[in-house]
């Protein structure tokens, strides 16, 4: 049984602009899957339909045998605790400490009052330290997030996703604002998470070479439609050209 099943997914904005059309694919547990495509192809929207950060217009998303589109408020919260998310701009609360930001990942398990008064158990806090240590930033635990470098902030973001104990992690352009060195560090950690902890990863990427290097499987998205779906090693030049369009390629090479 696949962990995630997307069937005929379509998304309309303002009732007319079609961002996604008839998207179909399945993801097995433990896979490291990358979605590539030019900006505006609908990668971010696709990712956000999976945890329903944007509403689904057509078709179905089935996660762990449950229909995401049909979920009520409570079930939706439960779904989101099972799905971690990592963002291009890290999306941390800048004025709070690193450790507080990591613990925000536990809100899905808390009642409103527990969350508002920051009632976290000692196990949760120790777990947070364990994860920060695993990503090599435990010594920054009490710093404010805006004092960290971009790469370090993204690692905090990863910790926040991991402390949710998710089955799936959605990564929306996780390295688009980072320099090459930090990008490599982040991608290595994501790969390590997927292989060591067996967490499924869905990573939106801009850079084809990074996708080919890390992902087991690649989905190519163009104008809201899937134009490639297969193992990374079968993605050849002509398909890349098809996804990004000839002109863009020329612009990049020149």
């Amino acid at each position, binding site marked *: 049984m696949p962990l995630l099943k997307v069937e005929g997914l379509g998304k309309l904005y303002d009732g007319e602009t079609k961002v996604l059309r008839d998207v179909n694919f399945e993801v097995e547990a433990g896979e490291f899957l990358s979605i590539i495509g030019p900006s505006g192809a609908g990668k971010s929207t696709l990712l956000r339909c999976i945890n329903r950060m944007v509403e689904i217009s057509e078709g179905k998303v089935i996660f762990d045998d449950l229909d995401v589109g049909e979920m009520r408020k409570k079930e939706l919260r439960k779904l989101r605790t099972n799905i971690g998310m990592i963002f291009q701009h890290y999306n*941390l609360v800048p004025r709070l400490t690193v450790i507080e930001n990591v613990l*925000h990942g536990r809100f899905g398990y808390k009642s409103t009052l527990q969350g508002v008064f920051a009632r976290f158990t000692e196990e949760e806090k120790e777990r947070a330290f364990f994860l920060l240590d695993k990503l090599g930033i435990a010594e920054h635990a009490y710093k404010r997030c805006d004092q960290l470098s971009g790469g370090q902030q993204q690692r905090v973001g990863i910790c926040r996703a991991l402390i949710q104990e998710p089955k799936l992690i959605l990564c929306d352009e996780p390295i688009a604002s980072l320099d090459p060195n930090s990008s490599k560090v982040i991608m290595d950690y994501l790969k390590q998470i997927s292989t060591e902890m067996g967490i499924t990863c869905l990573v939106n990427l801009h850079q084809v070479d990074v996708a080919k290097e890390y992902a087991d499987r690649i989905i190519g998205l163009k104008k809201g439609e899937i134009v490639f779906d297969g193992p990374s090693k079968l993605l050849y030049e002509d398909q890349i050209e098809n996804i990004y369009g000839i002109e863009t390629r020329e612009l990049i090479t020149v």
Partner: protein
Amino acid sequence: MNEKKIHKNKWQTTIFLLIIIFITYLSTAITDFNFIDSIATIPAAIGWMFTNLMVTQESMAKMPAIMEKLGETIFMSIAATTLAAVVSLFLALLGSKTTKVNNIFSMLARFIASFSRNIPVVAWSLILLISFGQNSVTGFLALFVATLGFLTRAFIESIDEANQSSVEALTATGATYFHIVSKAVIPQSLPQMLSWILFMIETNIRSATLVGILTGTGIGYMFDLYYKSMNYNVVALITFTIVIAVIVIELISNKIRKVIL
């Protein structure tokens, strides 16, 4: 092309200045304002101030009474501002794009804010005076209503300015509305909001004097009393105490602002 534009700009500036001069002239006519007279008044007024507005030994005897009324006024301003801030926070959460619950409540919150802000504090004091009578509660309520409108608008701006991406991230972890508000929105906008509250306390102490004259409470009433009985030495003393109070509070809030912003 460029030269033409400069010409056009020059013309615009000239027309604009002419309009302003015309409006100013109109204003002098309607208000019966005499420019020469008023310039002549300034040296006379300043001379009068230096000879009459003197603190004497005699007026110092009124100091304890003045301090009591000044204290009442300061407390009134702080209480009105703080309580208005609490209510404003809720209105601002309802009114802001980021945290609104639905459009109807958002509109309603913005409407209440605009209504209470744009009716001047004088009007509120006069309206409330009719039934509440001459006491601190009237002044307190008038300041409260006017502050409510101002702070709601300021808070909405602070919330809108806060980084919305962390709101998205917390929603994605399965956090509830109150989790998001208390852990992502408020921590980011709180220093800015506090700065507005401090600013409003300073403003309200000055407004409280005005409200006091109208509603017969606090230091404003005392000023009015001695002003009408032409005891200018006490008037001077009251003015100085107000100035010192306002400046001290301004210094304190500048210090706090420097740390938190």
